[in-house]
């Protein structure tokens, strides 16, 4: 390994990529305008979750050929039902971290590290479910 004072990096076709991105964003708005005018059902296949969120009335998230969840963009964002949907929707992506669910005097708590334990709100849906598990991944989105 040599010692360099600087590195020069260049993404392939960077100018073209930026143009393409602008074009895609422009087309997204155009597609939405056309749809609002003609009102015909459109099935739009994309791997770009921002496209899905911004264009769709209903999103169908598929993983390995299997439908994971169907819902409005807001439902997908606020109430993802699987780890895959939670990790796919939203930019920046949700935070995922392993945790332990513990019982404290004040109710349930999520223990993230030895020092950090966060209480689970009483009205949380999962707190009322009968099936509680010892170890889980906690998720909290950056967009809060």
């Amino acid at each position, binding site marked *: 390994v040599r010692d360099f004072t600087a590195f020069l990096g260049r993404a392939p076709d960077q100018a073209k990529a930026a143009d393409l991105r602008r074009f895609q964003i422009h087309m997204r708005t155009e597609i939405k305008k056309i749809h609002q005018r003609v009102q015909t059902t459109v099935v739009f296949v994309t791997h770009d979750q921002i496209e899905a969120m911004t264009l769709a009335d209903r999103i169908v998230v598929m993983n390995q050929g299997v439908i994971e969840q169907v819902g409005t963009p807001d439902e997908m964002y606020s109430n993802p039902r699987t780890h895959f949907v939670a990790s796919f929707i939203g930019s920046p992506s949700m*935070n995922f971290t392993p945790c332990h669910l513990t019982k404290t005097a004040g109710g349930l708590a999520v223990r993230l*590290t030895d020092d950090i334990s966060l209480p689970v*709100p009483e009205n*949380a849906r999962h707190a009322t479910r009968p099936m509680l598990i010892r170890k889980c991944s906690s*998720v909290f989105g950056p967009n*809060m």
Partner: protein
Amino acid sequence: VTERRQHANGAQQDIDANVNVLEPMGIDTMVFFSLGPTEICARTEPSAVSNVGESMGFTVNMDKMHLIDPSTDAVI
């Protein structure tokens, strides 16, 4: 996760951590910090951001937390 705010929103919880990386986006600044084995991204108000390596207070909105069963990948 955001910078610590003075909202009395009930379900918010605080974490102090050192800033690993800053990504200024203009309207927000993404702040990355370590929490145990994980790197967490917080969306923060640009004027509230500490320098890299310095400590910063964060708030977790527990109302928007999800718990995932690692054996099924389902949100519980």
